[in-house]
């Protein structure tokens, strides 16, 4: 799979991961403060920032695997940044990426409209929630509370990752800096894309 990837696409994912890693850290502090008062639910709404990397990268590069690889790289970078949540992030990265990837794969990497991107955000939410349910021991919580957490995460995935990701990528596309990536080619209806 990696053979068909250009080096610049991989480096791009890595740099995007760094940018959003910085953004995420900014928000994480806010999450940490709240967590003391309202419990684990405090992190739910910022989860979307996590998923945004895989959605933006897939939207731009449009190759099978872009979501998983980018999210995994993002997690690895986060670990390198000294994120205290540490090594388990890498695994959560893979799982979140798979969530988004599943949605793109279901469209056979043909559709990249707002709905699909939002669904991909939801996909990441669902996958990551299942994983968090297990590791975080959510099974002890009452159904209502878990449902609320799940709801917020899905919303965050759809809105921040889906809508936000599309808005940012489109803004970026307008700057002309994405020439040479699949997103620019398809917008012209180029057959190569």
């Amino acid at each position: 799979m990696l053979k068909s990837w250009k080096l610049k696409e991989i480096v791009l994912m890595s740099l995007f991961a760094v940018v959003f890693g910085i953004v995420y850290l900014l928000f994480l502090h806010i999450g940490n403060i709240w967590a003391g008062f309202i419990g684990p639910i405090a992190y739910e709404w910022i989860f979307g920032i996590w998923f945004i990397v895989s959605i933006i990268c897939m939207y731009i590069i449009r190759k099978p695997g872009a979501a998983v690889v980018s999210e995994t790289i993002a997690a690895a970078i986060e670990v390198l940044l000294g994120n205290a949540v540490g090594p388990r992030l890498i695994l959560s990265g893979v799982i979140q990426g798979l969530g988004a990837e599943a949605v793109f794969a279901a469209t056979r990497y043909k559709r990249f409209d707002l709905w699909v991107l939002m669904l991909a955000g939801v996909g990441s939410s669902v996958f990551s929630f299942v994983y968090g349910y297990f590791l975080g021991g959510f099974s002890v919580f009452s159904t209502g509370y878990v449902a609320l957490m799940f709801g917020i995460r899905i919303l965050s995935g759809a809105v921040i990752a889906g809508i936000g990701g599309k808005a940012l990528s489109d803004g970026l596309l307008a700057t002309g800096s994405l020439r040479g990536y699949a997103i620019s080619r398809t917008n012209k209806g180029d057959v190569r894309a």
Partner: protein
Amino acid sequence: MRKALHNMNPSVKFLLITVCMFTMAFYFDPWTPLVFWGGVLVLQILFSQISWKKWLLFMLPFFVTAIGYFWTTLVFSEDQSGPVIWSLWNVNITEAQLNHAMSLSFRVLAFSSLSLMFALTTNPVTFVMSLMQQLKLSPKIAYGIMVGYQFLPVLKDEFVQIGQAHRLRGVGLEKNAIQRLLGMRSVLIPMLAGAVRKAERAAFAMEARGFTGERRSSYFQVISIGKVDFIIVALFLLVLVLSCTNKFWLG
């Protein structure tokens, strides 16, 4: 041996920590994570030279999180069986609830300690190199990650500087939160556009240095697995087993 945790192979350490966490996830009693947490701290004292001041500083948010977990579990716990041991206004706290709450809080602390131990004893560059050498991560991805890591301070500075440069050019400061959130976009897009440029140039530079993405035949910095790794792995597994079997020896 005083620096064994710093010197051990990062990939081995990584796998070890992952195994420990997954095992812990199956336990919902307060003692298992507590004993495990204690064990981790003892090993950390014996085999690392982490500055405790730094450690406390990083742990602080996790203590807060643990407290959050504690009371939310008390209030929102599913299982409300067992004798009521505590009654506050109309809320009755049962034994099962309390146990779950303590278990989850200790789990947060144990996980955080493990992660923090990894973060504070591992050199990022060595970690990536080791992922490539021991876990056969593709060089394309490994060096892609290195580029990102190397640009981190630059991008961090840029985050501040773009904002300031915009101010320098006369972009007004946003007052309320919503405007600021939308203003985030005007910083993020140049950041990302810059990132695209940098990515392209860095990739060009790598290619220009003869990087084809194939496996390398020799490394400048060789990262190996040694005796230290076996000892540490054994010790951690011992702690893991001890904490999982606490029922038998704690009585």
